[in-house]
């Protein structure tokens, strides 16, 4: 798709994309206790990329983000499954998770959970799958 020649959209996008990406990360991180999580965070991330697709063309974005999104999906699923497998170490059941708090230099006392790794996998899988779908529909003309 050739990009839209719209000055307002182009200018706004430069700011808005950054905001959407930041918001998607916020959604992802807050997912552990509040509404949000890997799936929604991933979808918000995809929204930002789709906006870039609309404004510049798909080729240009693909050249700048040089990854095959099918591999991103596969990697995401593998991360999630292996987080589950990690739970099996030490005779615990599959998908068992560990939670603890660590004292980090800047953030101070921070809660860390292996469940987040699972969510990273979910987010990557969602991003990869939705972008693959959108790109293949976009190219199919």
């Amino acid at each position, binding site marked *: 798709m050739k990009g839209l020649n719209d000055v307002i959209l182009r200018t706004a996008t430069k700011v808005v994309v950054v905001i959407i990406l930041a918001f998607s990360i916020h959604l992802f991180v807050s997912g552990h206790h509040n509404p949000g999580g890997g799936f929604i965070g991933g979808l918000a991330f995809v929204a930002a990329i789709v906006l870039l697709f609309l404004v510049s063309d798909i080729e240009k974005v693909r050249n700048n983000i040089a990854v095959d999104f099918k*591999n991103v999906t*596969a990697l995401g*699923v*593998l991360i999630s*499954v292996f987080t*589950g497998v990690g739970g099996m170490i030490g005779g*615990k*059941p*599959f*998908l068992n998770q560990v939670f603890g708090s660590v004292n980090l230099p800047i953030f101070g006392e921070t809660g860390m959970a292996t469940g987040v790794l699972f969510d990273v996998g979910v987010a990557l899988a969602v991003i990869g799958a939705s972008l693959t779908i959108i790109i293949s529909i976009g190219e199919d003309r």
Partner: protein
Amino acid sequence: MNNLIILPVIIPIITGMVLVIFRNNIWLHRFLSLLATVLIGIVSVLLLEQIRTKGIQILCLGGWEAPFGITLVADMLAVLLVLVTAIVTFCCLCYAFSSIGAERERHYFYSFCLFLIAGVNGAFLTGDIFNMFVCFEVMLVASYVLISLGGSRIQLRESAKYILINMISSFLFLVAIAFLYSMTGTLNMADLSVRVAEAGQGGLMTAVSLLFLFVFSLKAGLFLFFWLPGSYSVPPTAIAAIFAALLTKVGIYAIIRLFSLVFYHDPGVTHLFIGILAAASMVLGAMGAVAYWDIKRIITYTVVVGVGFVLAGFASFSLVGIRGSVYYLIHDMVVKALIFLIGGTVIHLTGTGKLREMSGLIRMYPKLGWMFFIAALSVSGIPPLSGFIGKIFITEGTFQSGYYWLGGIGLITSLMVLYSVMKIFMNVFWGYTNLTEDMQKGTTRGLLLPMAILTLLTIALGLGTEGIHEYVDFAVEGLMNPNLYIDAVLGFKGQ
């Protein structure tokens, strides 16, 4: 708690995803996908031994105990089916190596086969009805891809129907689960069994159970099989064989599981209804098999007869009948894969599926011919092959429960199936050889080995019935006595 149970589900997922990443290395695809099925086979043999010595094994995912978390339950029936799934898939994958074509191989054929297996194994092993829905979906999404992979015109037409039918049945599945949840407040199948037993299976509950029966009938091809002959005859042979061997069996398994564990209080209504549907699908399937003169059509209709037969035994709801069902279910998975592979090979060699246009193949392909002969006898239940033992127990079971008509229909349709497969054998393999060297459309190179494995397996299952007797009896005991299942799942809390 036993982590082995999750392995048959995650091995194919991990392997499939690794294959997606290494897309261009076809040899790696072949090797890893075979390795995955072998590993699943080994895991299920280990599980069989553990169940035999220590009883039903369970795994509460993430340590969330039943009935709150998702529980995987490995009982004898489920693990036997997982084992047969692994063997059948192994053979179909071997067959695919030299028949599926480079184009399909590059387009993730092996990955989607493995995802299909993950869904099938998940549906067998799960102890949670919503999880079963999810596994059905995993399996179906993979099958949507496999059925339309290649994108020829007829494939797209049939896959559109197939997807529509399955969308509707999945929707109704979800509705049925919602009804059940609103009435009992639980989704864990053991817990469901306890609560349905406490509250009694009233009219409303029976109605919901019939909605489940409708959904699974649509998926298993029990009476509602109108979509089946079309969609099973369009994909390439290896895929059609996997579908015929596995997909309908998951529906059958779901019916058996649900109506032996949860809705077993009113067999006068539900099980009689299953019996009527089974009889109808046997009769209609056998009529289809007799009527058609196209090899693919005939063998797809024998799938329908097989579904009817397994559930006829289950409908009798007697020890002997269910034992027959379990034997026949295992036999049917093996022999349907075999007969689809052979049928597909014949079409591959001659370039046509029409019986009247070919003859005398046995002169050029004696091995193929005799393997088909054995498979044909096995499908129709001739001793000493594997179909015999199942049929005899099923017939005995239906007679014991007083369903003489059901047993009678089973026997008559067996004869009709025998006629229709012999029709294939006589027309295709006997007679004057009209196929010359240069008219052949392909060779059997690389195709015979997987078929030989399955043929040996059907002979071994027939002659070595004693060998698996103990395991089958264990499975039947679990089905007839739901308390064993419930104790294994819910009694775990005390430890």
